[in-house]
């Protein structure tokens, strides 16, 4: 069964004009979920009844002549790391099984206000820690474009849901690539905004100074629509950037109409010539770059020397912050509690039973990196490297408007291939981490496939707060390359 229309922009237009009732659109998506979700595992929860009520409310508003919003009737999948009052939220962890948050994340609330219809909460690596979705405490998530393959992570469920046509758009969170890498592996568009552009209020924190909520969608324009609807200052998040939100939709339009001619695009040496990059990925990436050049982009090459240390810095900073953020899961106020004779024993038993191995590993690593005697050597050093990365990227942006690289050095790898070796998994994030360390916006869009049909992602990075430029370049590239439609299972 195919939807009459699949892009969010198209759905919203149809719903607002009264041509396609939101309820009908929703039923098409719910039917696909009912038919195929068993084979994918994109969702931890499908909120059918809640979604039906929301869709009916949208249709009622249309009937009443009200403006139902930019995303009217657009089926939206929400990563289960975001709180939504009334629905259980697990963060993919046993420790939160059965927890009902009493409040809703700002980003989710804004999307619902814009008319989006939440179809469910998506599968993820536990507490967003992972690059394959294999750290979910609940179920396996498969890549819709290759069922023996991982969808990537940690927003694997969100990427899979969009790729499988279970939702028109999705949101995820990106701490070191957790939106862009699964988007790349599943062949969808995934975008991480400038740090602070989207409120983190209600996002279960992994690493607070790196986390950003962002869209996953079938097209660049849809990603921009979702971004535009949820971004902007929030009085509940002191790290959200104040001031008005520029209109990125005009950037999309510019990209589509004016293309990329004259734009200076840079290949980042350290990311493009990396050891361990799939030859196919390298080839597809090169072909893409040639297409851009042919259409008038000015190609430059920049070196960002500190990037060779970015992965190390990231795997000290992120665990350090997570070790503190995850302390509250102690069995006292919510979630799981395991018995213990005294409160410390109860805490230890609860955390031992509730956390999976990757989460424990990162808590251990982060606690160590912050502990007395080691903090300067590890956490402190990583923060200084972070400064170098920021400076180097700022310098690179004086030579180019945007930076390009593959999103992931490989296409989707087989389930189980990297679970025994944490380091091999961490390397999946090598191209995406710099944007998180520097807080810059970055986007991944499909730019081709390997022989087996597994997608390759093109990453575009732009300076801080240059989302409009980012969407413009991405849309221009998408116009040249062509969007990858959802897979028809």
């Amino acid at each position, binding site marked *: 069964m195919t939807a009459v229309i699949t892009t969010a922009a198209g759905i919203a237009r149809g719903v607002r004009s009264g041509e396609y009732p939101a309820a009908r659109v929703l039923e098409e998506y719910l039917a696909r979920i009912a038919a195929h979700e068993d084979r994918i595992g994109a969702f931890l929860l499908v909120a059918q009844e809640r979604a039906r009520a929301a869709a009916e409310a949208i249709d009622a508003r249309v009937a009443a002549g009200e403006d139902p919003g930019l995303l009217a009737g657009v089926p939206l999948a929400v990563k289960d790391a975001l709180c939504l009052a009334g629905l259980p939220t697990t*963060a993919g962890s046993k420790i939160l099984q059965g927890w009902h948050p009493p*409040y809703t994340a700002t980003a989710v609330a804004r999307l619902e206000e814009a008319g989006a219809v939440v179809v469910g909460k998506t599968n993820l690596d536990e507490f967003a820690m992972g690059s394959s979705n294999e750290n979910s405490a609940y179920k396996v998530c498969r890549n819709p474009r290759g069922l023996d393959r991982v969808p990537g992570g940690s927003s694997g469920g969100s990427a899979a849901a969009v790729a499988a046509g279970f939702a028109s758009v999705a949101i995820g969170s990106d701490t070191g690539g957790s939106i862009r890498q699964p988007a790349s592996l599943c062949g969808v568009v995934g975008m991480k905004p400038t740090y602070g552009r989207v409120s983190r*209020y209600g996002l279960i*924190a992994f690493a607070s100074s790196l986390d950003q909520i962002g869209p996953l969608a079938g097209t660049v324009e849809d990603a921009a629509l979702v971004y535009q609807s949820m971004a902007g200052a929030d009085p509940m998040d*002191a*790290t959200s950037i104040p001031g008005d939100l520029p209109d990125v939709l005009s950037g999309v339009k510019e990209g589509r109409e004016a293309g990329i001619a004259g734009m200076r695009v840079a290949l980042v040496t350290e990311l493009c010539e990396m050891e361990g990059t799939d030859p196919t990925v390298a080839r597809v990436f090169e072909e893409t770059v040639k297409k851009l050049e042919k259409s008038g982009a000015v190609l430059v090459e920049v070196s960002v020397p500190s990037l060779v240390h970015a992965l190390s810095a990231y795997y000290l900073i992120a665990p350090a*912050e997570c070790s503190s953020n995850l302390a509250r899961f102690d069995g006292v106020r919510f979630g799981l509690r395991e018995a213990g004779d005294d409160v410390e024993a109860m805490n230890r038993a609860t955390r031992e039973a509730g956390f999976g191995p990757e989460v424990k590993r990162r808590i251990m690593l982060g606690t160590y990196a912050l502990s007395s005697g080691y903090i300067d050597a590890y*956490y402190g050093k990583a923060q200084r490297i972070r400064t170098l990365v920021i400076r180097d990227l700022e310098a690179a942006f004086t030579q180019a408007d945007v930076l390009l690289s593959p999103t992931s050095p490989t296409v989707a790898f087989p389930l189980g291939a990297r679970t025994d070796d944490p380091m091999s998994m961490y390397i999946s994030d090598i191209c995406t981490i710099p944007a998180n360390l520097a807080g810059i916006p970055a986007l991944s869009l499909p730019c081709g496939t390997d022989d087996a049909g597994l997608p390759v992602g093109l990453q575009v990075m732009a300076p801080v707060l240059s989302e409009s430029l980012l969407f413009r370049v991405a849309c221009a590239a998408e116009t040249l390359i062509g969007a990858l439609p959802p897979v028809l299972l």
Partner: protein
Amino acid sequence: MSAVASDPCVDYEAVIGLEVHAELKTKTKMFCGCRNEFGAKPNTNVCPVCLGLPGALPVTNRKAIELAVRFGAAVDAKIGRAVFHRKNYFYPDMPKDFQITQYDEPINAGGKVEILDAGALHTIHLTRAHLEEDTGKSQHQGVSGRIHDATSTLIDYNRAGVPLLEIVSEPDIRTPDQAKQYVNELRAVLGFLDISDVKMEEGSMRVDANVSVRPVGAEAFGVKVEVKNMNSVRSLVRALTYEIERQTVVYREGGRIVQETRHWEEEDGRTHSMRSKEEAADYRYFPEPDLVPITLDQAWIEAISAEVPGVFPSRRAVQLAEQYGFDLDRVASVVYTPGLCDWVEAEIAIGADPLRSLNWASQEVMAHLNETGGEVAGLALSKGVFADLSSLIDDGTLSKKLAREVLTEVLVSGKSPRTVVSEKGLAQISDESELERIVAEVIGANPETIEKIRAGNKKVVGFLVGQVMKATKGAANPEAVHRLIDSRL
């Protein structure tokens, strides 16, 4: 190495530093909009932020910053860039299992407090005064209600997240009395400036002490012990006295002091060693990633500083004592009572007799406040009470004794002194003819006394005066009575 040699003949002195936690007088908590109020039903003033629910984020209360700056201005601290850090440790009354506090960049650095010590001013230097959040309240379930033999603990998070100013002194304090004066001084400053309620009994002001002893004349410090759980100034003095003696005895007997935390127990009047920790605390401080550094606007600091009266009660007491020749002890009781000294000075400025005003304030007014539990600000008095009383004495309407009675009535009723005098018919008898009649009666009734006076025993005149006063129920002007008796004999 301990600096303290064991020698039974050596005299020891104490070295004391105090950590005072004052709850700030804000309407809401430090990082959320829940009410900051004492005595609410358990767990009613809580929200996702102060309960540390997953996904919630802190947003700083402007008023808390303002109050901290007000204190900094009062104690002449360096007020500057402030950074919040996370102090990581597990404790069930601390919802996030870390405390947001300040570490190497406190909002107020340095500063000083002057105290009254043996009739002179003595300076206690401050290390810092920083902002942090309070914990919830634990109620230990067990036979004694104490933590040691509790079977379980119940927690109310209403207090969690209430803003605290932690004021840390240098180890400048040498005696329990200085500690008491220091706490009184701080309490006065915090109360006068409306920074805190400073009620030790309600826990809105808490004092912990670091105590060591060393031989008099030694420069190096002894091993310090942290003493906690004092809930009044009186128990602080008792605890310090006990602890200093305990340490001195240990040294005298050739023992050694171990660095530890000891609990003061009011019931048995001793400090008790807490379960000694297997390892030193490792708080893993790092900058709170959810809050960026605070850079205070210099003009704002100056505006706040301008509103802060630059005088400490101790300094004011010394100044007043010098200016009017007051007794320092008597002035002290007035300067430490909020609003009282201002009142006295205002009355002196409009003509009240300084010494009489001081006496009224330190006696009748203090007695009234103690009896009613009220505050100066709550007294409904018109301007000029002391000035009126002074002129009523000067024009002979009232005796000093009657003036005190009138004042007591004024304090209770809120009426003006003149109203009280006329309503109660308290004006003293200055009508000479009326007095003469009574004096004649008294002389006639005491022939033996008259004999004694004529024989040269002038002392018994007082007896006659007393008889006249008795007959007039105190309404006679004593000077007039003296004069009349003299003229008759």
